[in-house]
């Protein structure tokens, strides 16, 4: 990408047509611009790898070691052990898959529901707008977590997809409203009207003209709703309202606080803190990586780099 405005370019200059490739190159450049963003990106990559390869690193039934109950942090047990002597680190790594997969799916559902409904409500103003907005207001007034707790009695959360779907269903309201208001303002902007005047199809206008202008908001929202979904599902497991099919961080927390009484005995601290640590580290990663996303999607920022 030559720097703009260099009139005196020496070689015969064939204008580089804009293709996807340079988007990723520019995106990578905006990530590496600040060290804080690199750390954030590294944390996210670490957790994704943990989710994908975690279960393969350990045997399906983690080794129990009765004489190492609540062992202090050591090289053998980097995060100490739980009430059965299994290494907390192993529990964290194997438990990551369910949590992250469900959160990713949940965030995906939220973004897809929110964006599509927001775009439609914002662009095709009229009855479709009022209906969608009534539904959004409905979901927004209900406090989402109590709703989840109530739904937990009906829905079985065995598979991450089921958990993701429910998380998505209950949290797309805010997103839909924000995307709708942005679409409404973009709709009045000249370039949308010009596109209509030039006879471009509504599909082109919605997804080629309006969507790119909203994509930086969507990108950031995708990340924030991942953290939101993680906390919701870990919270559900922590409260114990959802049957424990597979081990994950929420289950660890629940066991630590309610059954293993970690709140009262100081030496059970590592068992309690390791899931909390994992959660906080992931939040830190996402928060740091967030402002890189804004720059990636906004050409105005990207070009001046």
């Amino acid at each position: 990408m030559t720097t703009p405005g260099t009139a005196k370019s020496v070689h015969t200059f064939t204008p580089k047509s804009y293709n996807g490739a340079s988007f990723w190159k520019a995106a990578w450049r905006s990530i590496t611009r600040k060290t804080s963003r690199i750390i954030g990106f590294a944390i996210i990559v670490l957790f994704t790898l943990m989710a994908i390869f975690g279960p393969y690193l350990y045997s399906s039934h983690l080794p129990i070691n009765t004489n190492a109950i609540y062992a202090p942090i050591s090289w053998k047990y980097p995060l100490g052990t739980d009430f059965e002597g299994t290494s907390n680190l192993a529990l964290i790594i194997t438990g990551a898959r369910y949590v992250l997969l469900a959160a990713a799916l949940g965030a995906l559902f939220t973004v897809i529901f929110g964006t599509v409904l927001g775009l439609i409500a914002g662009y095709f103003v009229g009855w479709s707008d009022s209906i969608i907005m009534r539904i959004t207001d409905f979901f927004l007034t209900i406090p989402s977590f109590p709703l989840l707790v109530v739904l937990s009695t009906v829905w079985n959360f065995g598979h991450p997809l089921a958990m993701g779907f429910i998380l998505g269903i209950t949290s797309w309201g805010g997103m839909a409203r924000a995307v709708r208001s942005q679409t409404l303002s973009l709709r009045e902007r000249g370039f949308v009207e010009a596109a209509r005047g030039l006879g471009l199809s509504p599909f082109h206008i919605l997804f080629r003209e309006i969507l790119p202008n909203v994509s930086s908001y969507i990108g950031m929202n995708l990340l924030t709703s991942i953290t939101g979904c993680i906390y919701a599902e870990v919270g559900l497991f922590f409260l114990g309202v959802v049957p424990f099919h597979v081990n994950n961080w929420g289950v660890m927390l629940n066991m630590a606080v309610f059954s293993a009484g970690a709140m009262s005995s100081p030496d059970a601290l590592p068992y309690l803190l390791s899931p909390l640590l994992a959660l906080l580290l992931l939040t830190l990663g996402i928060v740091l990586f967030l402002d890189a996303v804004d720059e990636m999607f906004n050409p105005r920022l990207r070009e001046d780099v």
Partner: protein
Amino acid sequence: MIEIKNLQKFFQIKAKFSNHKTVHAVRNVNLAIPSGGALCLIGESGCGKTTIGRMLCGMENPSSGSIIIDGQDISKLKRGARAKLLQKVQLIHQDPYQALNPTHTIEQMMKATLKKMAKQKKKDADWIRQRMDELLKLVGLDPETILFKYPHMLSGGQRQRVIIARALTVEPEMLIADEVVSMIDVSLRLGILKLLRYLRERHNISILFITHDIASARYLGNDTELYVVYKGMVIERGRTERVIRSPQHPYTQALLSAMPILKGIEKPGKDRFVITSQFRQSEEEPRGCLFADRCPFKQSICDEKRPELVHKDDAYHACFFPKVRQVAAESI
């Protein structure tokens, strides 16, 4: 090429529970623009000139009256045919900063419509690139230094030229220029006006020029028509130079007198007068002449009856007591 017959447009302002207020934005306007011709709509903001422009390019539907393009009344056509016909009329927006998608490069913008045109004309990618370069050069831009840029990297003038080039991709027969120079630097405005004039004379594209600045309307060529609009009604019309040099309607005269005088280059017209009363969006519809409440030459009849647009030698005016007054500034 395009003709309007007593076009009407009124808006219902619905307050939730109180009464409805109807605002007459456009009051039976008639106009005809030959191909390659230019017609200027002059008036203050809120007088309905932009609404007329938006109705002509199909952005808004008239309340009554008909719009005839190439002999066909667009309201009687089916959606597809109507859209095809309306593509011959392209609107150029006032604000060049809003009219280009900030996330697309100039190349992407041009290709969006050219791909569609290429499909219709069964042409290949080379035709698209060749047509793109040709159009950008036509509007005075160098494709090499501009194609890969984003809109925020161009100046106001360059952006307005890109917008015109994009409008030309669908081979329109008419451009509606709605206040296209008001956001451009004063020293560069003439560049855009000369471009519009060039498109008229070389490419037979007719122009509907909407503005509040009479001076810029003169630079579209010598054979242009001038329509003065006040509160949605055409109150004077004729060839541009004639309306400027010998205006008949008091409102046109007030507009011309309000133009600032360039000391040292121009001297004020001898009958120049300034009206200080404020433009008030009157609650109820005035019975008589619309300009009555601000007209310094008003007489009693003006409050009772509303004058219609009448023909007098080669110009039209809507006033009971038309009197030519030398109000426009003359060069020293």
